């Protein structure tokens, strides 16, 4: 089939599925309904669409109606929450918040953690102000899809000046095959507040997971955000996070991706206030015939904003990686400093990476740099280790781990680095057409 700009969908079928799921009701009913129209009008993006050039979701489109068919969440399978004893643990099953599997007690007074359904009852105005505050349905058909089908999500609102010392860890689990999960997370950090948020995606079934997170960080606040994507090997995962930083807010994001059949993550970070700062790092890896994709859109919209983005990819087998990083510096964002790097390691002859770091600069007094490199394991380093008597698989593993370890230092949630290391070791076992 020829490349197309968008993939047309069986609109009537999907609309019927949507109606039978009762999504038109409640405070969000109107929003959902508009988003559904927008989604059906747009269709799913085809490979003619520039930002989907390397990402073919035709097969997902073919099966979309089945995925979207309402299926009540049951008992989830597979891996449980991350081993984070101090954390406030929240659980979603099939994209829907599961209060009975979540800690909701013992939160500080100034921290509000509520399901969107409860918030709709108690404070509909708050819900309306948070939902869609940053996420735009016309940004992407998948954001529209998430909005149209969003079930019960979660809102975390932290009052001004409050430090939430315990990390909030959200585990996204699955209970059945062929379900579509459309989780929505809304986070609002008040002025001068601090929080650590961990999103852990670990479906145990072949499912379609299409999460949207909106995190707003008010002036002087500080957010440490982690996302770990360790989905079932046949899962479709297409995630978008929107993060906005006001004056002097400090953002740090860490993405680790190693699961799924096709896993695409888009981070949209807007430095809206003077002096806002963001550090983003990402480690993505894939083997077999998987597709992994990291997209980054950092907007410097105010003066004196700084950002540093470091992404590393490791591809084995016949896997394909895509990195697309864009730094946009608006006209008013004088004295911006930004540095974007992407380094990739190809472990086999069949592995592939398409990388595109971009700068788009409209201010004149800025310091921006970007670069990307792709290579194999360094033959000289490998020989050095071999010459010490270390066997080849171990030596390769040391070098691969080292490549990732340089990125994963200073992690406040060490279990993530540990899981990444384990994933690297299994990647290592994928020896199809090894490169030395």
């Amino acid at each position: 089939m020829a490349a197309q700009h968008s993939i047309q969908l069986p609109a009537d079928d999907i609309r019927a599925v949507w109606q039978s799921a009762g999504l038109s009701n409640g405070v969000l009913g109107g929003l959902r309904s508009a988003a559904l129209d927008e989604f059906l009008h747009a269709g799913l993006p085809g490979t003619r669409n520039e930002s989907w050039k390397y990402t073919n979701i035709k097969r997902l489109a073919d099966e979309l109606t089945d995925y979207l068919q309402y299926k009540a969440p049951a008992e989830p399978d597979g891996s449980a929450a991350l081993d984070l004893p101090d954390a406030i643990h929240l659980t979603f099953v099939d994209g829907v918040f599961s209060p009975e599997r979540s800690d909701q007690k013992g939160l500080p007074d100034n921290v509000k953690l509520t399901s969107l359904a409860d918030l709709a009852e108690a404070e509909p105005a708050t819900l309306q102000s948070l939902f869609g505050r940053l996420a735009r349905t016309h940004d992407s058909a998948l954001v529209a899809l998430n909005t149209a089908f969003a079930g019960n999500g979660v809102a975390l609102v932290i009052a001004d000046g409050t430090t939430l010392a315990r990390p909030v860890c959200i585990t996204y689990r699955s209970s059945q095959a062929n379900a579509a999960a459309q989780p929505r997370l809304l986070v609002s950090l008040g002025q001068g507040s601090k929080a650590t948020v961990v999103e852990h995606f670990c479906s145990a079934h072949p499912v379609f997971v299409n999460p949207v997170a909106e995190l707003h960080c008010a002036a002087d606040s500080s957010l440490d955000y982690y996302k770990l994507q360790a989905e079932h090997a046949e899962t479709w995962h297409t995630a978008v996070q929107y993060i906005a930083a006001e004056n002097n807010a400090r953002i740090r994001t860490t993405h680790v991706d190693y699961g799924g059949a096709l896993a695409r993550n888009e981070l949209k970070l807007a430095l809206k206030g003077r002096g806002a700062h963001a550090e983003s790092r990402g480690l993505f890896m894939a083997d077999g015939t998987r597709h992994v994709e990291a997209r980054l859109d950092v907007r410097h919209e105010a003066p004196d904003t700084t950002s540093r983005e470091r992404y590393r990819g490791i591809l084995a087998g016949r896997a394909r990686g895509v990195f697309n990083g864009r730094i946009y510096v608006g006209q008013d964002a004088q004295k911006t400093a930004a540095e974007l790097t992407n380094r990739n390691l190809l472990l086999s002859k069949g592995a592939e990476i398409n990388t595109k770091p971009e700068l788009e600069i409209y201010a004149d007094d800025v310091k921006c740099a970007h670069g990307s490199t792709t290579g194999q394991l360094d033959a000289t380093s490998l020989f050095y280790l071999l010459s010490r008597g270390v066997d080849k698989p171990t030596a390769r593993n040391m070098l691969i781990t080292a490549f990732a370890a340089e990125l994963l230092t200073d992690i406040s949630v060490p279990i993530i680095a540990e899981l990444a290391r384990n994933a690297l070791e299994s990647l290592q076992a994928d020896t199809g057409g090894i490169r030395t």
Partner: protein
Amino acid sequence: MIIDISNLHASVNGTEIIKGLNLQIGPGEVHAIMGPNGSGKSTLAQTLAGKSDYEVTAGTVTYKGADLLALEADERARAGLFLGFQYPVEIPGVSNVYMLKAALNARRKAKGLAEIDSVEFMRFVREKAKLMQLDQSFLSRGVNEGFSGGEKKRNEIFQMAVLEPDLAILDETDSGLDIDALKVVANGVNAQRDGERAFLLITHYQRLLDYIKPDYVHVLANGRIVRSGTHELALELEANGYDGVLAAAG
């Protein structure tokens, strides 16, 4: 005989660099190889260590009675061959001790010994680091990462001391060392001499040989050993240069 190299020919990218080299080293012996830049000294060392870029096109190398050329680089190391690199490689993210522990345990396994206990390993490694006057902090740093030129060379000898090889090939370990460091390195080598362990020292400077007394000195030129002698030969080279010696060799 520890190693017996006979009529060795080796090429890189189709260019022959080693052109029929013969050398025998017996147990406990120290041999020095000197020779002009580009004569093939490092090529010889790396070929013996098993670097895959170097293709052996003719000749044999018998190491402790077995065919060395049939072994992979890591197998050679586990069989007790050690190469001290002319240009030690920096490997950020892999700590010195981590690499050494893996290397030592691999070597012990090959010898039929159990893995070394962690506490015992650290004690052993600290003692060797002290001998090489390497600060303890170097143990946890990435392999050679940010080390000065001299520190890298000391780190090579430190690794040799930990791995206790049967044959150590030291490629210009003395280059770039200050006078004190040269003594430290020489002491490190001398401490390893036990009448069994053999050494092949590649050097440009006769001064190293004042500290580590060689049994034989060879001159390598254009891929062949063109002259062999005793320590006297090194002194003669120092006095007359390669031109004089090579002319005399005809």
